[in-house]
């Protein structure tokens, strides 16, 4: 039987995390499924647990100089209700699970699970989100694409807790978030796509694209994006085939119970093509 710690402050939580190397438990909507044994039997955690789901210091959203700061244990429902949260992130969150799960599940949990199918991730990648990781003795900031290393693998140290997600909300004129799943509710993504475009007259001022669930981590390529930034609409349309070729090399999905590599790759590329054609032609 492992210890289940309920700290009253973040400081206490960090001390427990550092000393016990405890599992960080926020919403628990994934952890409880993994720890499930059978009815009437306690859930089975292999390490001590530190519960941060009710820590007020880890909840809330604020905006400062155009940079949004989201505390890591803010629930998905609270993010949907918050006027400061940009719409693309809300679109991704509203595609996740169902209300009861969103009431418990947190954005920090979605990140630290590092599932390739985590639905907030493509949006956070396109926003260049930065994560604040704290331990008793240190605070560091890590860009999300350096934090997530592979399925279930992150750069978090065993004495750290993710405390905050922050990013400068980019200016964009059009965006799309698309999640492809078996059904609308409670489905894990077969794949997801986030695209955004900003224009300066006839020219593309900014373009960002990210794909979820089609590689070990979210696929985003700044090199590919730079190929169309600064170009006129007509010029961009002529490089779309080349761009699709570039992304085709980066999108390396697998066959699993949810979908096939063939389907994932094709649909991903078509979503990108459709997004660009819709807004550039």
């Amino acid at each position: 039987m492992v210890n289940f710690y309920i700290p009253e402050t973040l400081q206490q939580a960090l001390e427990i995390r550092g000393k016990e190397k405890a599992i960080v438990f926020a919403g628990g909507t994934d952890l409880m499924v993994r720890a499930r044994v059978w009815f009437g039997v306690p859930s089975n955690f292999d390490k001590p647990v530190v519960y941060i789901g009710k820590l007020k210091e880890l909840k809330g959203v604020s905006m400062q100089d155009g940079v949004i700061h989201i505390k890591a244990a803010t629930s998905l429902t609270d993010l949907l209700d918050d006027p400061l949260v940009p719409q693309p992130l809300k679109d991704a969150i509203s595609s996740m699970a169902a209300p009861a799960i969103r009431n418990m599940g947190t954005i920090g949990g979605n990140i630290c699970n590092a599932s390739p199918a985590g639905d907030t991730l493509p949006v956070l990648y396109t926003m260049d989100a930065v994560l604040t990781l704290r331990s008793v003795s240190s605070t560091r900031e890590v860009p999300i694409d350096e934090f997530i290393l592979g399925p279930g693998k992150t750069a978090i140290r065993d004495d750290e807790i993710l405390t905050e997600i922050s990013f400068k909300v980019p200016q964009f004129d059009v965006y799309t978030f698309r999640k492809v799943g078996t059904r609308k509710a409670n489905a894990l993504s077969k794949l997801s796509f986030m695209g955004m475009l900003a224009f300066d007259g006839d020219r593309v001022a900014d373009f960002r694209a990210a794909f979820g669930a089609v590689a070990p981590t979210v696929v985003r390529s700044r090199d590919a994006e730079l190929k169309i930034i600064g170009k006129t609409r007509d010029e961009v349309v002529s490089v779309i085939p080349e761009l699709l070729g570039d992304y085709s090399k980066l999108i390396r999905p697998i066959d699993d119970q949810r979908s096939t590599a063939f389907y994932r790759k094709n649909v991903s590329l078509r979503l990108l093509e459709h997004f660009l054609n819709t807004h550039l032609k």
Partner: protein
Amino acid sequence: MKITFKLNGEQVSVETLPTMRLLDVLREEFGLIGVKEACGEGECGACAVIMDGRLVHSCLVPVAAVNGSEILTIEGYRETERHKVLMEAFAEAGAVQCGFCTPGFVMAIEALLRRNPHPNEDEIKEAISGNICRCTGYDMIIDAVKIAAKKGEGLW
């Protein structure tokens, strides 16, 4: 570990292991068997209860997380005027067949109507999207919510 919380309006304490699921504690320690287990992984909504005003799946909540919280189950909700209106609407619409999923749906609908007393069809579908019913095909449940919202005008 001693867990103290408010259950259906009453202050209660229970001595249990912290990683027990709220679902099991409600059923085994308090005999509240209106809280059902089907999938055990948050997919079906049969175990839904309202925790601090929000719908949660009790199979995903370790009981330690409930310390200091307020829980409403179908057994407590049954005593309310809102429940009466909702049950009559369920009967009128034919929204109960085998009945296993009904407590979870009722809690999900209560959570919806608290936030939004006049939901449209899309909002109703969204609110019950985490609940699975294998009998009715959902249309009758959606009808029941519409009837309840109308007949229960002013209650929510």
